[in-house]
């Protein structure tokens, strides 16, 4: 009897360990994942909607100087308060968020396009093209990303294109790695042999067999890149290297807010920061749930 209990206990422990390894620990992980997805999607939905609607309802006020309304704390009239030039921070922050999200979305699309192309070609061709492309990738990765971004942006000051390019250049590498790994596992499958035997060219196999198989992974990495891109853009703007100062952007607002903090204007920093953090957390939550569903391997392997 005692022996049976010991065995049962061991099996229970083993099961728990296996579940933990598989990333589905007991205790309603499914429910928690659904909650995370729901909260993330809801939050992001509200933020995106607000970022679209609010600056559209008050089109000019993000740039409207009003020196009778300078440095007002949050109130019913100005929900987030006003800054040193009397601009309404609520409208300005949401306008900034819109710019950040737009830049991030363009960057994510750019990064997955470049990353998927490089990863698929490197993985599928193998040999010297693979080695050359992967060393190029290592070279990009060897330089600190922010530093590389700063160099690119410093060469072309105050241009939105330069900001986008600098983010794409530093973020395609992760996508390329993931796609290449996937392609490597596909390229020697018998169905590729069958396609070759059926007269398919390499381009045909890449288009019809390989790319559809990695599309899910690529789309997932686009969502994973999104919060990175938001932060990268914010960091560049904060350093005064990103978007031109007259354009509202979370980074620009925070940069202006630094001096206000000394005068007690906490709202200049607090609200834009909270919105920034909420946006990235919401996106990261969605990405993490999608990743767990699409890639049921251990989480650490794909952590970006």
């Amino acid at each position, binding site marked *: 009897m005692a022996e049976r209990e010991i065995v049962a206990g061991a099996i229970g422990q083993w099961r728990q360990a296996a579940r933990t390894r598989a990333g589905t620990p007991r205790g309603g992980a499914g429910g928690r994942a659904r909650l995370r997805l729901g909260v993330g999607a809801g939050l992001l939905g509200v933020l995106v909607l607000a970022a679209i609607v609010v600056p559209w309802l008050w089109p000019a006020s993000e740039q409207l100087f009003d020196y009778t309304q300078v440095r007002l704390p949050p109130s019913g009239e100005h929900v987030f308060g006003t800054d040193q030039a009397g601009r309404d921070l609520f409208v300005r922050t949401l306008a900034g968020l819109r710019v950040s999200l737009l830049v991030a979305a363009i960057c994510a699309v750019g990064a997955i396009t470049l990353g998927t192309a490089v990863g698929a070609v490197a993985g599928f061709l193998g040999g010297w093209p693979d080695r050359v492309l992967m060393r190029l990738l290592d070279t990009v990765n060897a330089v600190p990303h922010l530093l590389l971004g700063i160099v690119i942006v410093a060469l072309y000051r105050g241009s939105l294109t330069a900001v986008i390019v600098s983010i794409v250049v530093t973020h395609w590498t992760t996508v390329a790695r993931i796609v290449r790994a996937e392609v490597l596992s596909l390229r020697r499958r*018998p169905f590729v042999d*069958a396609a070759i035997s059926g007269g398919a060219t*390499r381009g045909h196999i890449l288009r019809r067999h390989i790319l559809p198989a990695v599309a899910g992974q690529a789309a997932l990495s686009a969502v994973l890149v999104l919060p990175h891109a938001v932060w990268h853009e914010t960091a560049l703007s904060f350093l005064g290297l990103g978007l031109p100062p007259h354009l509202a952007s979370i980074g620009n607002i925070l940069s202006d807010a630094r001096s206000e903090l000394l005068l007690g204007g906490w709202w200049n920093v607090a609200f834009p920061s909270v919105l920034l953090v909420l946006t990235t957390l919401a996106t990261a939550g969605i990405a993490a749930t999608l990743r767990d569903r699409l890639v049921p391997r251990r989480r650490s392997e794909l952590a970006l």
Partner: protein
Amino acid sequence: MLSATDLVVGYRRGRPVLDGVDIELHPGATVGLAGPSGCGKSTLAAVLALLLEPWSGSVTLDGRPVRRFRHRVSAAERTSIGVVFQQPRLAVDPRWTLDAVVRAPLVASKRRDDGIVAELTEAVGLTRELLGRRPHEVSDGQLQRACLARALVLRPRYLICDEMTSMVDASTTALLVHLVRSVAAAGTGVLAVSHDDALLDAWADDVVRWR
């Protein structure tokens, strides 16, 4: 004639799987190849299908030496040899319907369907309903039927059957072998690889036994 002489092939340096092998496939004749697992039957099949480059030795297709393999050999030469793989599950793209699988060689080589698809799918016993399904919705036997149809859809002059019947039941085996025999009777050279001696005795004109 599809022939290989003095083949040396392997996967790890210094450890050849095949060493000095000769084989000839003549149009209209079926050569059986039997042997225990791991003796290099599939490796030989891959070389003859031009999918694996040998270390040394020569492969000759209809009197012309083949110097390059896989993608590097011309599509015309590649498609003159049909291949049926051992595991149908791995040999088809899981996203494609069986109909797309059977038509894939026609699409890839930009040839038109002159009724061959209907003819072959009927011969292998695939109904219209089955052709609309995806690989995970059919059995191994049904999938292997589609794979044989795919291998024959370009009317190859040679057919390599690498353990074609090892994953399928007796009735499907009978149907597939019957079709391959009729194709061989019409002038196709066939290599039938199997470890089932009794099957090869009934199927092949000539059986090569290794070890």
